[in-house]
């Protein structure tokens, strides 16, 4: 029988469960993700830095962990993991190790055998909040004190923890079976474009999709000055996804201001929020965020609905960038902003994740759209 573990939320709710993964203690913002598959991608997504993830699906670990489906180097980025039942007998031809071993390898504390549906309903009704998982301190009151004393997630610039230290080139395309079913994006003989990706915690799948879209990809650290990037003279610039509150990454906002109008820009998730702030707009926090792979997003230009991969707690208030950008995508669940386009400049951005990983590939065409925007711009 596994050891005991406790989860205590900032509002004092206590769940008693069993430990899996590593032993220890961890604090983070507790959020729930409604994807049935994709725990490996979720755990390695740098956007989950500072957060403890609870999976709403009850059977986790089924297919183990493989070598291909990682979204960042250096292993797991989430602070902790909460599941109803962690199955420790992975079954999949690509599986290399079990989830339990993977969590242990990266010293990530997990808790299982709690009512994750009750936890999810609690977070839905009371909002995402800080929480602590511990296997060494089993006193709920003491854990409650610790989590109360801990600052909220918005107090930190989490980007600096996850961005690359060095600039690098990325050349790998999509895994042969994860490439979207769309026709090849770059036709034979067509010249390859070049993009610079600002790494605020970039997911590898963004880079893979850019390669598929016919780009030479250079990834630069989050703090890279705009001037340096412009000197590299790329065809376009990507502002990547990343963790935390966009208002804490002031340097990125400033750099973005300098890049606007100089180069075509495509923002994804945190990158989208940074664009909003760079335009002088404001961002706001959602009660419990969007984390999952089933949110319908409507492309307002075509009327088409795409099922999207979502992972964000903040949104851009589209009213605050009125005159500069117009709303292009809307979330059909709660009507929140999902994408915008600059009224004059070749800049667009989306709140959801066109790169999927995990989640549907419905929006993968946005990489092609970026390519077309660049080509239109070059002409």
């Amino acid at each position: 029988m596994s050891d005991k573990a406790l989860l205590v939320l900032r509002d004092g709710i206590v769940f008693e469960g069993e430990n899996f993964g590593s032993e220890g203690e961890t604090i983070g913002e507790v959020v729930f993700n409604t994807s049935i598959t994709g725990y490996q991608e979720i755990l390695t997504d740098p956007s989950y830095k500072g957060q403890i993830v609870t999976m709403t699906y009850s059977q986790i670990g089924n297919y183990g962990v493989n070598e291909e489906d990682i979204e960042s180097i250096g292993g797991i980025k989430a602070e902790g993991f909460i599941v109803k039942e962690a199955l420790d007998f992975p079954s999949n031809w690509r599986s290399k190790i079990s989830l339990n071993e993977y969590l242990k390898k990266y010293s990530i504390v997990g808790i299982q055998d709690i009512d994750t549906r009750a936890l999810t309903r609690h977070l839905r009704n009371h909002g995402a909040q800080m929480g602590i998982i511990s296997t060494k301190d089993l006193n709920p009151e003491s854990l409650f004190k610790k989590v109360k004393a801990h600052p909220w997630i918005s107090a930190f610039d989490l980007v600096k923890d996850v961005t690359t230290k060095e600039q690098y080139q990325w050349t790998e395309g999509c895994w042969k079976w994860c490439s979207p079913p769309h026709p090849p994006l770059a036709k034979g003989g067509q010249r390859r474009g070049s993009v610079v990706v600002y790494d605020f915690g970039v997911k590898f799948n963004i880079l893979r999709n850019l390669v598929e879209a016919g780009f030479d990809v250079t990834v630069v650290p989050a703090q890279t000055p705009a001037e340096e990037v412009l000197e590299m003279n790329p065809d376009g610039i990507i502002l990547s996804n990343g963790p935390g509150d966009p208002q804490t990454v002031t340097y990125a906002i400033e750099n973005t201001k300098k890049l606007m109008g100089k180069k075509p820009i495509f923002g994804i998730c945190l990158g989208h929020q940074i664009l909003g702030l760079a335009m002088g707009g404001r961002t706001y926090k959602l009660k419990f965020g969007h984390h999952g792979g089933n949110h319908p997003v409507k492309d307002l230009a075509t009327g088409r609905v795409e099922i999207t991969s979502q992972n964000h707690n903040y949104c851009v208030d589209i009213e605050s960038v009125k005159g500069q950008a117009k709303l292009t995508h809307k979330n059909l669940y709660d009507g929140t902003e999902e994408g915008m386009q600059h009224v004059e400049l070749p800049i667009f951005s989306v709140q959801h994740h066109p790169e999927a990983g995990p989640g549907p590939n419905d929006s993968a065409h946005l990489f092609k759209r970026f390519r077309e925007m660049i080509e239109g711009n070059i002409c």
Partner: protein
Amino acid sequence: MPKRTDIKKILLIGSGPIVIGQACEFDYSGTQACKALREEGYKVVLVNSNPATIMTDPEIADATYIEPLTADIIELIIKKERPDALLPTMGGQTALNLAVELAENRVLEKYSVELIGAKLHAIKKAEDRELFKEAMSNIGLEVPKSAYVGSMKDGLESIENIVFPAILRPSFTLGGTGGGIAYNIEEYTELLDKGLKLSPVHQVLVEESVIGWKEYELEVMRDTKDNVVIICSIENFDPMGVHTGDSITVAPAQTLTDKEYQRMRDAAIAIIREIGVDTGGSNIQFAVNPENGRMVVIEMNPRVSRSSALASKATGFPIAKIAAKLAVGLTLDEIPNDITRETPASFEPTIDYVVTKIPRFAFEKFKEADPTLTTQMKSVGEAMSIGRTFKESLQKALRSLEIGSYGFEEMNASPSELKANLKIPNAERLWYIAQAIRDGMSIDEIYRLTWIDPWFLNNMRQIVEMEEEIKGSRGQGVKGSSDKMTSSLEPLNPRTLGPVLRSAKEFGFSDRRVAALIGKTEAEIRKLRNEIGLRPVYKMVDTCAAEFEAHTPYMYSTYEKPFYSVKVSKGQSIFATANPPVCGKDSDALPPLNPPLTKGGQGGVVESEANPSNRKKVVILGSGPNRIGQGIEFDYCCVHAVFALKELGYETIMINCNPETVSTDYDTSDRLYFEPLTIEDVLSIIEVEKPEGVIVQFGGQTPLKLAVPLEKEGVKILGTTPDSIDRAEDRKRFKELLHKLNLKQADSDTAMSPDEAAGAAKKIGYPVMVRPSYVLGGRAMEIVYDENSLLDYMKRAVKASPEHPVLVDKYLEGAIEVDVDAISDGIDVIVGGVMEHIEEAGIHSGDSACSLPPYSLNKNIVDEIKKQTKAMAKELNVIGLMNVQFAVKNNDIYILEVNPRASRTIPYVSKATGVPLAKLAAKVMLGKTLKEIGLAGEKEIRHVAVKEAVFPFDRFSGVDTILGPEMKSTGEVMGIDEDFGTAYAKAQLSCNNRIPTSGKIVISVRDEDKEGICDVVRQLHNMGIEVIATRGTAQHLKNKGIDVEVINKVKEGRPHIVDLIKNREVNFIINTVSDAQAQRDSFSIRRSALQYRVPYTTTVSGARAVVNAIEMLLKKEISIKSIQEYHKNENNQ
């Protein structure tokens, strides 16, 4: 896009009778579609030959035709109704095939009817193997390599492109006869040679084997704007090689990574686009090689299906309803999600539980059938269950099946038997796997024998390991026998058993299984659970894994651990929703700080989302998985009970576990609990809901069995009391009752041993009908003509004992059987319908055709039957429905059976008369009088409605088509017209038994029938039909002055009767047999008739009805009339 205004009237085709492969899931989808279309303001015209459906209720469509599902009949309907559009995707393969026929013979064009949902080209592309293969190759997807082969030469060429092992499937053989797997060229040529000979069209499909690959299904929906969503993914527990309808299936898919799932999702989207299904749902099946992930597309159904019904119930997303709305031009984002209300239908449901479906089989009914599970579907029903984990869901599904299993009971099997039962897929394989684990076989070995994914097997291993923990927890020194239901003397120790019990319940163990493991009774375990506060909680099926608030109380039970707050002091609730504390005796007192870490149950609250209301409410127990003898008819009755109680202002609570049905549509009742129908699961719900009473009389035997145990627990049973039910079911008490009323019964006796049986039979006089007591659907019931057969029966079929006596009844040979349905409020009794069977008494009433009103009985007899019915209803103090079976012989009336509950014939009688008996009965059960609800008297009808049974014989190779006292039919049809002959002809046509009006009829009857057949032959001759008879029959006819052509029996040399059938020179066959030898001799006649689709009858009474039908068919053109018209005319009388 707004809905279309250029169409006003839409024709919907139902799926016809319940057969293997097409069951009540199409009543569910069709009913949803009708409701959805009318909600949008369209007029709906419906045609379906199955009267036992909710969809054919007169309120569901604007015009309802209970008519044969043939292209010419539908053309008549189109001509009369002039619909603008035809929606072909709601009635299974039947509707789809008819739509194709109507399109290809240009009927649709002629009457300007547009196909909506799926166009002809899309249907063809999905259904035609070659076109489908080509389409898949266009979008870069693989299908298993295959070829149709018409000769050995072809076959040898084709095999070069197909790697071994190869599967061979001869075309159009019954039950997949002659198919097989070839692992090498030698086996291949042998199988091919055999297959080519067996196939009536000399064609064999040769296919690359994907047996043992992982099998998946995706349910896809598309709208006119090309938005596509996946509603549900399903992973089959049984790998490729077992038909998905016969497979245990699990939702969602369990062993695919996100990349692999998305690849499949992308493929599914590409497929629905490439095939060109405009709008609606499709089901797409994939196979994945477990070694390397290679994915091939198996097939696509461009329509709603059994899987889509399952997916709808599994996710809460009503596929058929949405598909109907998409078909008229609405888009997914324009349709709200009923469950969350605020979010649109353009999303993909996500779930936080596991759904398991297990099929239910009926091999015990077809002893000669091969019980191996193959690519040909053989199951007759299914149960679905929901649990938070696969383990819980699987174990709940076991007890939902109602096959006497409450967990993984031990199987007695030698190691070699065990291996054989693992290797060859069969209905009990699940239990054999558990036994193999128990016996120490490694998961790896089990995997290599079964190819069932190790993930599933490892979960089963955990269940078996938990059994050991349970056994180990019963305390020191107690040796409880694990298979006895009697209690051991040792008291239960909550301290040792409590924590284990909690874990066991989380794993889905039933109280009964736990009890069996530790030698206790179920009641003792229940008591212990209640003492330690270990009760299930209810979670919602909400389409969104709790991301949004759900408004539709669609629930399942689970066991969860409590949680608590460090901040809140005693007595305060921290929860926004008023959750009743479920666990812990002092659970309103929140736990003290720093509570001891226990395995739960010591404090805090367990969150339950049941939120029972304070309304007056009634629980209706459903009928569980479909089986032969208990099918859609009972679901129909339960649904009517719900409708009736809603009308009376009650909150209705449905408990059922059959995913195919209308009753488990969350739209039907106010609250739906998708739960097994066992005393444990039902009681737990009743404890939470506290209803005024429970209705057990509408769902067949399943809920009826619970009547007495529930009453014992203090639950109020509404309507006729369990004691009255027992008075009718208990032989002794029933005999006394009949004696009191001075009514007649065939002589009968009870025997505890073969000797006693022989004695009884001698006293009563042969022939006698023998059967075990308390059986359903006439199981193991036989008619024996002499002592030898009787003793053989006693040895073979039953184990007689004082607890399980055998019933011996005088068999009333040649008697006419009559069914009566009546309704009583305790004061008045009104007869709903008197039905005269066409087949004689002795053939199970569920298998017999019958006519309402009676077609040959005289009025005096019918009046006397009604009088007797009323007397019995009064004596039994029936409140609600009652069914009586009579036998009439030489103007004497015998009572065969009385059932004070809803019968199989209720929907048929209701459709025939326009009186909704079940609905009225439900109101009566809640205290209304018949006068109050406006039922003044019996309804006289001026038309005739004939019910005919439909059989699954063509699914099972080696099974005879002879009818007997054991019920074998899966479904029924109704033919309705102005006269008996035409109504009978329509009923036969609805069963694909087209009665000929010219050509040749072959007759071969047993000696007892030779006199009776003379008139039949004379009449056939008069109508210009040629009669051919076997020697004995011909000789008898000749003696009577009737000359007919003689044909050899099979053993008499060639050309013989089977040659005639194969050469398609016969239009109808009349074949009756008496003893077993004759039955064996003539078996090949009936079998070839089945294979070559020659209509036949196996009784003389059936033959007479056929003559009657031919007469009417020759006299007048077949015409159609809607149910609404039939009943309107009568109301105007």
